[in-house]
């Protein structure tokens, strides 16, 4: 029982990180049918900035704030300079400019921070909650709760606010949206910003959970986030979130009961099985008919 709950907590925490990174993709894909290939490096950059500021000021809250702002601003810059000029071009063109942007960001990070692996910049007290004979780590639960809250906030914004109404319009028809008085450029810019903010929260949790920050984390998190987005039905935010959590749980229990060496094999097996069974992902029916 104890062991089961421990794996559950491990799975929820890792799954929440995958979910946040994946939701970052899905927010953008759902609204714009665009895969932001620079996503991984954008949140990696934000995580490094978080580290730099936290280390320099010893203030983790300021660090988080700066990390979030830097990621959001960088995503808006990438949108403005790499995607907007080629928005009307063939879809391969923004893909290539995305790879270009990703490379530039990665190289800047290497110049600024080298290719070393850094530990999490603040000491985290190892708090536990004891329920009877069972101990659950507080920060594992906290990761899950924060991810859940972020996901609920996004859902609320998209479903219940004027901003969400505008995003929904832009996702369907940009020309008509303009004719309704919607500032399409700023909505698109905001969507990229939102995707990056969610992503960098995932990135900072990644840093916390694995106690490491390194240039490759963008790519690493991206692989898992991407799997979650595809399995959940990319563009479907709730589906993506659930798929992220499922992926985390499958990995945790798979590592425990089979072997941790097979963790990645298990995640890819999940993708393949789901996609054979449901080619649009678990929750992806709506976006299949995108015009």
């Amino acid at each position: 029982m104890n062991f089961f709950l421990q794996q559950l907590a491990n799975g929820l925490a890792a799954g929440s990180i995958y979910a946040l990174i994946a939701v970052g993709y899905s927010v953008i894909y759902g609204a714009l049918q665009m895969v932001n290939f620079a996503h991984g490096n954008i949140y990696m950059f934000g995580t490094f900035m978080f580290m730099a500021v936290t280390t320099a000021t010893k203030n983790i809250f300021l660090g988080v704030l700066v990390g979030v702002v830097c990621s959001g601003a960088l995503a808006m810059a990438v949108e403005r300079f790499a995607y907007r000029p080629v928005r009307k071009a063939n879809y391969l063109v923004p893909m290539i400019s995305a790879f270009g942007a990703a490379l530039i960001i990665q190289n800047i990070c290497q110049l600024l921070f080298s290719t070393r692996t850094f530990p999490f910049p603040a000491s985290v007290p190892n708090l536990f909650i004891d329920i009877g004979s069972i101990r659950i780590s507080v920060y594992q639960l906290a990761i899950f709760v924060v991810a859940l809250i972020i996901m609920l906030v996004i859902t609320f914004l998209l479903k219940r606010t004027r901003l969400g109404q505008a995003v929904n319009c832009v996702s369907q028809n940009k020309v008509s949206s303009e004719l309704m008085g919607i500032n399409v450029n700023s909505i698109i810019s905001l969507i990229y910003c939102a995707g990056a903010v969610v992503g960098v929260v995932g990135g900072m949790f990644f840093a916390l959970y694995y106690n490491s920050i390194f240039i490759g984390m963008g790519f690493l998190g991206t692989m898992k986030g991407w799997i979650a987005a595809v399995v959940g039905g990319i563009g479907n935010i709730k589906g993506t979130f659930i798929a992220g959590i499922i992926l985390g749980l499958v990995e945790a229990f798979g590592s425990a009961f089979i072997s941790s060496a097979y963790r990645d094999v298990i995640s890819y097996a999940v993708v393949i099985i789901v996609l054979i069974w449901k080619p649009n992902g678990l929750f992806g029916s709506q976006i299949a008919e995108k015009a």
Partner: protein
Amino acid sequence: MSMLKISGLHVGYGNIEVLHGLNIEVNEGELVTIIGPNGAGKSTLLKTISGQLAPISGTIEFEGKPIQGMPPHKIVQMGISQCPEGRKLFSRSTVSENLLIGAYIRNNKAEAKVDSEKYMARFPVLGARRNQPAGTLSGGEQQMLATSRAMMSHPKIVLLDEPSMGLAPQLVKEIFKMIREIKKDGGTILLVEQNAAMALKIADRAYVLETGQISLEGKARDLLHNDSVRKSYLGEETSETKLP
């Protein structure tokens, strides 16, 4: 002073010029129609007014202020609403959501809600399908919805691009009835139409646009009896094109 004043307007796509120096005016409360054959540049003109295209040269003044080259959302906020060719509804959103989106720039959402109910009562087919995705409506229903949506922002002037396109005669009548109602309520309308007979009957003034130039303008009634207009655009009148 005219509400909308277009002077010496040149517009093109890439380096192909499509509109060659247009002068058009619309006064407050007027229904002005622009008729002309396919490819004359009618939609290009409306897209330029609503800000989707920037002119090569020339000016567009709205209530005395130049608006050419302004972004579309700013132009909507000034009070110019366009119902685009081919309707361009938000096809996954419901009928009632589409109407409410039309009031995006208005601050009072409760009033917008009341207005949307008014349109769904005015067109019972829309009311009956209020929770249905707009993409599932018939062509005629979509046009009613698109025209209503364009009115939801309370525009000072509404630009209608071929509202009768592809509709059965009965529905064409229904749409034109709606246009006359907008005018009766004091609305100002710039109507682009290929159904010249119907358009000339309800309009105050008309322009004939041919290959990017105004070839004829005047009172709609006069154009209705103009020989060259009759030959090129009216042909034989059929009973379907008569107003009820």
